């Protein structure tokens, strides 16, 4: 039967079905003519219609109940899955059951793991299959190979892997009862296997003793690589649930995994740390009951302490100096904050080998310990959401975690403080439904406003108070609330100076932070001074502060850049970049470094280099934060600016608009970042002659900026400058002049007279004069511009355009020779560096034609006219 046929049958059926029996037959005969099959079909339907249909009438409830019994996996007797015949049950784990099997075609024994409760929709089964193929590439003696995989008809995934015998790592170790040296040697073998997988870009994500088998000869075999990734639902980030985490054993899960954040090779390193700790001490670093979320306990006891207490005979196995190193190593692998942890398994291996060979470690004892864990309360369903939100606010926006220092006195004080912090954090979330966690609409700023007042209540512990203030101040700054950030940062700095002395690393960090605030406020002298002070403290400090030192260099670079000292900024930033991890290990700091460097290159006019660095930063941010993050938006802005200056307006508008969407969504509508985005879009809208639209955006931006900054500000200046340009285009010369002059005032007040932006302002005023035919005024202003631009960035587009304009003002005064001296070099530059349809290039050709007319060199004049005619509009 086909569609048409069915239509016909239906029609007849519908007509006949309600007729009384006696009339039905004749009606049918009439409608069907002599189409016998049609008649039969309809009659069949009519017959069924009369019957009661248990399934179709009653619905599926009963049937559903019957089939939906996902009870215990049916016992398998002599089963066959593809070419594998199941022999016996090997074991049952949290994830599924493992059977011993053999291949019926070519023989040989394998292990088959069936993952129950891991139902994949039909669409995902396909993806699953493909991803397993990448795992099959792992070919290492210590890694259990995956030979095959698939899914049963009901969706249960299965894997076929190399059959490995042995005990789980920790059990083996307990039984062996070997020396600490032996322990480390086995541990290294495990790490090497993990490192191998990492070098193939596969992260295990679920390392635990049951996944690491050791046989009698001491050979190690790692199981289940990468499986956790396939099975976690993609949405576990957005609504994390405990069941989503069921696949992981919580004890070995890194803090960032629990919080649903980005996972990397460092996540496996954390698990390795837990394993090492457990092997050494026989205990887990955090006391966990199954089913609870672990709290990172700030008093995680050092392995040396535990070992010596529990097994005094081991004291002889390790020398006193080595105990310290052992602790450092173990604790560093367990660092809750990713930046302080061993970044790779390889780094961990190196230090273990160093320890075994009696050499010094690369790691230094952690000076500050951090924990985010204290902010999680026990036994609350909304727990993981809470943690996730806090990490998002605290960890993602500002790249910090809240720092707590270790208790100095008795455990009593520790407990009291713990309570205070818990209360503090809970009070942050008051107002949200505690069961479900704060609603996502609760803006970060509102949360912080509450937190700000709570911080005062921590007066009895000045060090912690300072830490809180510093963190909150940073967050406020990043969110654009500079006025609120200032008192917090100042207070934090003062407190720390008082408590820790001027040469302490934390004081240095506070100086840098305050310096950056000053930069945003436009007080550049003070900014540079503060940042330099902080930087030199950190430079001379211990190696543990290397990250902070690199950050201070980047801060200095950004201040210098703002001051227009581009060469110096470039050097500083390049120095910083050498300290940063790159490629796969690159962090947010690396990206920020690259972005700053890219900015400097941009202002120097080195667009290619700028683009390259921006793109590298973009890739890092995208990997770390996804595509909806303001850091990504910033890079998009940068790329947009590059395209604008190259004259590719369509491309740049695309970048800017995308950036604006991200920024507005993240920061809200009255944030300086949003304003900056608006300005950028407006700028290049005006290049495209869409002035009305540009005006609207700019005025919006101006309102925001004035509101945020108050007083004199460089950002307001930029916006005024843009408005000036629009007014100029609309021939509102007086308004334009006023805007430009205001812009210059702001810039002069905040950046100093020698700054290239002052040059731009002069250039713009010059343009107004030019159009008003006041050529002397124009020349005067352009000369000011040229003088400054040549000094700071001789070969940049801005300098060239200034020369071009100066040339035009001279041309209008009929000083042709002088004009040629300005316009010709400008033209030569433009022809090499801008798009063929660039307005300035056209202008230069036009001017040269006029100049040579004036100089009576008609050939040359004609040459440029011809070029002008031939160029695209």
């Amino acid at each position, binding site marked *: 039967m086909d569609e048409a046929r069915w239509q016909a049958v239906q029609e007849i059926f519908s007509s006949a079905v309600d007729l009384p029996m006696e009339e039905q037959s004749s009606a049918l005969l009439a409608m069907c003519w002599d189409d016998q099959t049609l008649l039969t079909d309809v009659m069949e339907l009519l017959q069924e219609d009369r019957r009661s249909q248990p399934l179709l009438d009653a619905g599926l*409830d009963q049937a559903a109940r019957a089939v939906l019994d996902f009870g215990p996996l049916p016992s398998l007797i002599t089963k066959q899955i593809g070419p594998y015949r199941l022999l016996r049950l090997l074991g049952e784990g949290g994830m599924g059951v493992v059977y011993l099997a053999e291949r019926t075609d070519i023989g040989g024994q394998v292990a088959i793991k069936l993952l129950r409760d891991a139902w994949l929709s039909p669409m995902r089964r396909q993806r699953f299959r493909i991803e397993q193929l990448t795992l099959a590439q792992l070919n290492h003696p210590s890694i259990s190979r995956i030979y095959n995989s698939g899914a049963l008809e009901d969706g249960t995934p299965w894997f076929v892997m190399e059959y490995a015998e042995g005990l789980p790592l920790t059990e083996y170790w307990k039984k062996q009862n070997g020396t600490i040296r032996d322990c480390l040697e086995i541990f290294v073998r495990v790490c090497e296997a993990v490192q191998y997988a990492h070098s193939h870009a596969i992260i295990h994500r679920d390392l635990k003793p049951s996944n690491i088998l050791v046989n009698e000869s001491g050979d190690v075999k790692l199981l289940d690589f990468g499986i956790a990734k396939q099975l976690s639902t993609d949405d576990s980030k957005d609504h994390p649930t405990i069941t989503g985490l069921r696949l992981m054993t919580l004890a070995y899960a890194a803090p960032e995994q629990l919080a649903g954040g980005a996972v990397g090779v460092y996540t496996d390193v954390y698990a390795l740390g837990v394993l090492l700790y457990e092997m050494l001490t026989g205990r887990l670093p955090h006391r966990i009951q199954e089913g609870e979320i672990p709290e990172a306990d700030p008093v995680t006891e050092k392995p040396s302490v535990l070992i010596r207490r529990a097994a005094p005979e081991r004291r002889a196995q390790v020398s006193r100096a080595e105990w310290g190193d052992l602790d450092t190593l173990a604790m560093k692998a367990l660092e809750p904050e990713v930046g302080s942890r061993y970044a790779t398994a390889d780094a961990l291996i190196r230090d273990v080998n160093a320890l075994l060979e009696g050499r010094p470690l690369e790691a230094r004892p952690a000076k500050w310990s951090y924990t985010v864990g204290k902010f999680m309360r026990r036994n609350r369903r909304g727990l993981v959401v809470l943690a996730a939100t806090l990490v998002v606010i605290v960890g993602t926006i500002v790249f910090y975690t809240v720092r707590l220092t270790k208790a100095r006195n008795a455990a009593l004080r520790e407990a009291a403080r713990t309570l205070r912090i818990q209360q503090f954090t809970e009070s942050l979330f008051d107002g949200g439904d505690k069961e479900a966690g704060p609603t996502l609409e609760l803006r970060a700023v509102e949360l912080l406003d509450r937190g700000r007042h709570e911080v005062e209540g921590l007066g009895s512990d000045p060090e912690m108070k300072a830490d809180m203030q510093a963190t909150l101040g940073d967050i406020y700054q990043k969110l654009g609330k500079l006025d609120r950030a200032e008192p917090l940062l100042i207070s934090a700095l003062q407190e720390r100076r008082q408590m820790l002395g001027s040469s302490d690393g934390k004081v240095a960090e506070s100086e840098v932070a305050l310096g950056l605030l000053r930069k945003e406020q436009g007080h550049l002298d003070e900014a540079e001074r503060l940042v330099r002070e902080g930087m030199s403290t950190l430079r001379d400090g211990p190696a543990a502060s290397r990250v902070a030192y690199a950050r201070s260099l980047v801060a200095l670079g950004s201040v210098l850049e703002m001051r227009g000292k581009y060469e110096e900024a470039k050097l500083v930033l390049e120095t910083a970049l050498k300290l940063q991890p790159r490629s796969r290990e690159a962090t947010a700091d690396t990206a920020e470094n690259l972005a700053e460097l890219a900015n400097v290159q941009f202002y120097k006019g080195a667009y290619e280099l700028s683009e390259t660095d921006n793109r590298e930063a973009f890739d890092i941010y995208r990997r770390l934060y996804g595509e909806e993050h303001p850091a990504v938006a910033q890079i998009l802005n940068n790329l947009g600016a590059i395209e604008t200056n190259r004259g590719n307006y369509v491309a740049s508008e695309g970048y800017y608009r995308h950036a604006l969407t991200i920024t507005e969504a993240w920061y809200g509508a009255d944030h300086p970042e949003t304003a900056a985005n608006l300005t950028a879009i407006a700028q290049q809208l005006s290049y495209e002659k869409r002035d009305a639209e540009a005006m609207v955006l700019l005025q919006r931006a101006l309102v925001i900026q004035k509101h945020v900054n108050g007083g004199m500000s460089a950002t307001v200046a930029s916006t005024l400058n843009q408005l000036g340009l629009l007014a100029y285009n609309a021939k509102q010369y007086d308004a334009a002049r006023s805007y430009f002059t205001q812009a210059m005032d702001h810039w002069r007040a905040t950046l100093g007279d020698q700054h290239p932006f002052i040059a731009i302002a002069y250039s713009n005023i010059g343009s107004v004069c030019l159009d008003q035919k006041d050529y002397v005024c124009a020349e005067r202003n352009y000369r000011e511009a040229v003088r400054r631009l040549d000094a700071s960035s001789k070969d940049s587009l801005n300098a060239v355009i200034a020369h071009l304009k100066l040339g035009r003002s001279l041309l209008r005064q009929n000083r042709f020779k002088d004009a040629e001296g300005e316009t010709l070099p400008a033209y030569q530059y433009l022809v090499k560096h801008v798009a063929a349809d660039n307005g300035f290039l056209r202008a230069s050709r036009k001017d040269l034609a006029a100049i040579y007319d004036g100089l009576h060199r008609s050939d040359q004049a004609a040459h440029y006219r011809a070029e002008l005619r031939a160029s695209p509009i």
Partner: protein
Amino acid sequence: MISAEGRDSFDEQFSLVYEELRRLAAGVLRGEQNGRVTPTTLVHEAWLKLAHSPEIAETSPLHFRRIAARAMRQVLVDAARRRNATRRGSGEMLVTFDESVPGMNAISEPRDILALDSALDGLSRISARQAKLVEGRFFGGLDVSELAVLLEVSEATVAREWRSARAWLAVEIRRSLGGEPGMAEVETH
């Protein structure tokens, strides 16, 4: 998360709902034998769970139930296959000898569902709209007025098309079950 348009988005939503339904079904039934769980309640629970997730946020409740109906169908079919006592040559089936299966018609119910499923496939080939109708009604618990809105036809059309679809499916199911008496049949006049 940005959801892509068209096919991709539907696949994402479907996968999401499918897995949620499966989770719910397993979770609830594990605890209670003979619980008051039906496809409709499962779909409702899935809606409560997923309503605020970004993939689903743009979808109206009605359309959600449409997707859920499709997903529910798949869940039941998969479950039925799992339970099916038929030994098949492909070698991929798990054979069950589990004695603790509830209900007396342990063998027939999976078969009924599978037969319905394949009959529905057949129906969709000759009338996509009717197949949607049946799917929505059966697996999503949509009533006549809701179906009318969803399919953009009148309620009278829904009623009419249900009737003929029912008859057609009955014919198909009877055929595929090979005339075996799955459930009691009563002829009424």
